[in-house]
């Protein structure tokens, strides 16, 4: 559906814009001011304040930074590494392909949360370790998608023609394979963005991600948990933000896939 893609694009744009704006400007103060705790919504604090008197809207806007940053970095790392491995597997075939794919199976089978806890235990919880942990889940996904689509392109006659013209496997991969699977990878990346945002929220909720005082939607959710009867709105707002971001990326991914469809006919199983 064309409309879904547009809505998704708008939601994603909103999240990205919010994150960008929050770097230079915030509507309220995120400093602790216990006297102003649990303030009702007012012109000064549009969504009220939290248990430490911080402006909730400002926290949410800053929280978008963590989400966008973690999602961008983890999908970026996961997609480039995974795609490179998948392309390598498809180009070389034989034992190299087997090896890469069995490694991907292994990474898939390994619980991602356990890996995140392990990273946090060894290097301490931080944003960069959350990025690494999420990228670790992404690598095998992109490796599989890239290899499967690349193998289909390798069977095309124009690739045979390129081999007959004496091109090397690397040249063919860069010139013919990658451009022809790019659409599939972009669609996959948007969907993985949604997963990354959810994963960042989950890790921060568990205290394995972004550390105080940097705000993040997952951490706001965790802190609001104990105040659920007293101030349920503190849990609702960050929850809503996560929903909006994930929904936006999913809709955008759907839209992109439909848009790319005529070109992908016969490429997807």
């Amino acid at each position, binding site marked *: 559906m064309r409309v879904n893609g547009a809505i998704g694009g708008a939601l994603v744009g909103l999240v990205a814009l919010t994150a960008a704006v929050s770097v230079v400007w915030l509507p309220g103060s995120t400093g602790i001011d216990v006297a102003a705790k649990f303030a009702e919504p007012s012109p000064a604090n549009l969504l009220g304040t939290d248990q430490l008197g911080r402006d909730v809207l400002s926290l949410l806007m800053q929280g978008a930074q963590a989400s966008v940053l973690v999602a961008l970095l983890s999908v970026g790392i996961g997609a480039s590494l995974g795609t490179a491995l998948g392309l390598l597997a498809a180009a070389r*075939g034989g034992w190299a392909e087997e090896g890469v794919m069995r490694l991907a199976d292994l990474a898939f089978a390994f619980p991602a949360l356990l890996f995140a806890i392990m990273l946090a235990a060894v290097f301490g919880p931080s944003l960069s370790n959350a990025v690494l942990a999420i990228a670790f889940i992404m690598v095998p996904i992109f490796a599989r998608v890239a290899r499967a689509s690349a193998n289909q392109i390798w069977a*095309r*006659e*124009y690739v*045979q*023609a*390129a*081999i*007959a*013209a*004496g*091109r*090397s496997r690397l*040249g063919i991969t860069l*010139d*013919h394979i990658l*451009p*022809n699977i790019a659409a599939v990878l972009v669609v996959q990346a948007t969907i993985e963005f949604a997963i990354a945002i959810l994963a960042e929220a989950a890790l921060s909720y568990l205290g394995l991600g972004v550390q105080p005082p940097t705000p993040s939607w997952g951490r706001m959710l965790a802190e609001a948990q104990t105040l659920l009867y007293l101030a349920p709105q503190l849990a609702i707002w960050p929850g809503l933000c996560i929903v909006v971001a994930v929904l936006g990326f999913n809709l955008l991914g759907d839209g992109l896939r439909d848009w790319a469809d005529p070109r992908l006919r016969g490429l997807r199983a």
Partner: protein
Amino acid sequence: MSLLAVRDLRVDFPAGTALRGLSFDLERGERLGVAGESGSGKTLAALALMGMLPEGARASGEILFDGHPVSSLSETGWTALRGRRIAMIFQEPMSALNPLQQIGRQITETILWHEAVTRAEAARRALALMTEVGMPDPEARLRMYPHALSGGQRQRALIAMALACNPDLLLADEPTTALDATRTVQVLDLLRKLAQTRGMALMLISHDLAAIERVSERVLVLYGGDLMEAGPAGAVLADPAHPYTQGLIAARPRPRPPGTPRRALPTIPGTVPGLANLPQGCRFYGRCAQAVPGCADARPALRQTGEGRVLRCVRALG
């Protein structure tokens, strides 16, 4: 020394033998036709010459290109040979071009890959090639994407790509199957003219004897992975000796002279058996009208029957 010498080329698959010891020579500038039905091994022979046999194929025998055995070539050695000394054009002009790349880029990439020339020089040569293959409005076509070209134009673009580095040998695998009759004649004449003016050897693979007659000086007739008959194209097609060649020629559709009664087009009975079921003696045994029981037992020897003509049949007199 011949440009190409193939000696006892054999290709085996787990299911059976697909090419049963093929030997032939190709001189510089010579135009050779390879005829046969699907499954006769003609495409496989071409792929063996390019070092592009499908997975699972085991090849033996010797291929000497310009006096050098190709069997010892590494992957890098092959990439230096393919496209530069031996080029190949494929059946389907629709799918043999990358849909996401401009025609011009696809030609210049091959030149830039093989030769140390500037991008401008490569572009200039691409334009010259497009003109040489008779592309209408070549300058504009260079910037077009494959979908904007007609079937005949795409095949011309593919021929231009294949000629990019002045190969000594061009393998054309059924280059006209996807084209209509008029385009077929044009592309065949173009191939013959290019081979003549460039002194390039041409190996035309086709099931279409008329195409081979139009282009080739010499013809090899393959059936079931075995060479059945070979000789000067005119002589073999005018006076076929092997029952299989005779059958192929009888099965050619021709215009019926006005006033003569309609008659069914003669066919060769049966179909080509699968690899595993090919007869062990003469490959054509079982479909041959002239076969005698002895034909099933031993592979007939290739024997000389005339000036440059060879035949693999115990029955035919040749």
